[in-house]
């Protein structure tokens, strides 16, 4: 099948348009996605559970609804995957761990209910870094997720299976979670749009927590319009396609200093080229700074490790051998953080949030790279930048975790590749809907 004829390569808005004209059926689209899963999942390890029968039944329902003139909106008949932290009634939620076991979830997570009500076709549960505590999706009980662009490399994490499922045409959209960058990091590694809404906009009920102060739920998609379609369903907000902002109406604040100090060469080149294109198109780009940027990692770790360690304390004592060693070690570290230091970190969070609000005061969005490195080789513990080796995990989190700390909405968009691997930029705003409009404008420039 030619790529142009392959429905699994479509963005969801286009697929929806074709279904509404009768040129494509939800059943045919779902069958094509399930065929991609059957063909490539053994290699990519994108899915932990595939719900073929339920997906085909949902697709037939969607087709019947189309024929009856019942339109539930842009997700009707669209194959969607869900990170295996999100409960689907009757299906186990494993968190990619041996700790939880195979007991099926009793009820749907809130976001699952909303997707079903919108007519989405849920094709299965995707692989991840165990309990979402990692950036490479290698520490998992179900085999390391591989990047479809280069199977020797990581798909990013923790929502790595979600990202791989879209790139490989196994679904047209997916739901991930983002506690330090786990939607945006795999999106950057795989060349997708990854949107972390503002904190609290999308409910986390029925989603295995990592850090309740930082946990977010959101979509990974092929386009900004697709991300908006998913977001409005997940947040149960009024459906609205993003308005593509004209370049001359846009003002971006370019985060300098800390945020551009440690970039792999391919990222630096791709990002500089993207900024040049954006400026040439007429967007006003000014420099902005965040005085406490270098404190972000300490603030983040002081909260994240303590909250994750508390959540896992009982099972760390009862069945420590069931965790991946690296995940267990990080969780154990959290048990040593004193209450007074946790509270210091929470005060730091408030300061950082105010700094970002100040930085956003005179611009529509902040701009910075999506990730400091391209997708790293599987098994790599460090990456050298300017001759200095740094831990992969710290480099992958460096540019995304500030906005989990602050709770601001943030989105990554592909702006490369400059080589064989994707490069992304990131936009951060004050409000999700306005940020999606800005992102649609920038996407139009970069495509």
């Amino acid at each position, binding site marked *: 099948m030619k790529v142009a004829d392959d429905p699994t390569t479509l963005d969801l808005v286009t697929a929806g348009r074709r279904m509404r004209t009768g040129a494509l059926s939800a059943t045919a689209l779902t069958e094509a996605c399930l065929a991609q899963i059957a063909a490539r999942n053994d290699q990519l390890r994108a899915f932990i559970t595939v719900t073929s029968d339920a997906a085909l039944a949902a697709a037939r329902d969607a087709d019947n609804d189309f024929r009856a003139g019942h339109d539930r909106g842009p997700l009707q008949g669209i194959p969607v995957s869900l990170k295996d932290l999100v409960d689907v009634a009757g299906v186990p939620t494993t968190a990619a761990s041996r700790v939880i076991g195979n007991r099926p979830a009793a009820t749907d997570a809130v976001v699952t209910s909303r997707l079903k009500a919108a007519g989405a076709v849920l094709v299965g549960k995707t692989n991840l870094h165990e309990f979402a505590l990692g950036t490479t999706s290698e520490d998992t009980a179900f085999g390391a997720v591989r990047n479809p662009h280069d199977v020797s490399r990581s798909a990013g994490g923790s929502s790595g299976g979600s990202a791989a499922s879209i790139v490989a045409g196994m679904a047209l959209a997916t739901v991930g979670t983002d506690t330090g960058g786990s939607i945006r990091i795999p999106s950057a590694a795989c060349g997708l749009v990854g949107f972390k809404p503002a904190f609290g906009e999308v409910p986390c009920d029925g989603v295995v927590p990592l850090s309740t102060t930082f946990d977010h739920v959101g979509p990974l998609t092929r386009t900004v319009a697709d991300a908006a379609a998913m977001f409005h369903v997940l947040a149960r907000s009024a459906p609205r396609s993003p308005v593509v902002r004209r370049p001359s109406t846009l003002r971006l604040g370019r985060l300098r200093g800390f945020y551009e100090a440690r970039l792999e060469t391919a990222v630096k080149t791709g990002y500089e080229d993207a900024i040049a294109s954006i400026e040439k198109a007429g967007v006003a780009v000014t420099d902005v700074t965040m*005085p*406490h940027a270098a404190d972000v990692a*300490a603030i983040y*770790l002081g909260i994240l490790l303590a909250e994750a360690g508390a959540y896992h304390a009982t099972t760390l004592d009862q069945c420590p051998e069931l965790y991946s060693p690296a995940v267990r*070690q990080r969780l154990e*570290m959290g048990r*040593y953080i004193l209450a007074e*230091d946790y509270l*210091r970190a929470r005060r730091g969070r408030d300061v950082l949030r105010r700094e970002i609000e100040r930085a956003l005061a005179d611009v529509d969005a902040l701009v910075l790279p999506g990730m400091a490195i391209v997708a790293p080789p599987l098994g790599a513990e460090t990456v050298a930048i300017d001759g200095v080796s740094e831990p992969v995990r710290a480099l992958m989190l460096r540019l995304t975790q500030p906005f989990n700390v602050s709770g601001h909405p943030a989105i990554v968009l592909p702006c490369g590749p400059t080589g064989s691997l994707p490069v992304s930029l990131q936009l951060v705003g004050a409000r999700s809907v306005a940020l999606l409009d800005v992102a649609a404008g920038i996407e139009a420039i970069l495509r």
Partner: protein
Amino acid sequence: MTNPPQRTSVDAWRDWAKADAERRELPEVAALIDGLSATIARLRLGDFNADARLGTAADETHESR
């Protein structure tokens, strides 16, 4: 786990955490405590924890660091 010391400098915290991790036969965790102690030190030294009523600079003065 053993109880942490009541009044902890970063050094005292680090010594306690490392000793406890070693006692619990978690040498990999003990090895990570040095790195975590840098995080703890940063949190304690950060001016966002200061309070003018306690005689230290308020967090709004960070630009003067």
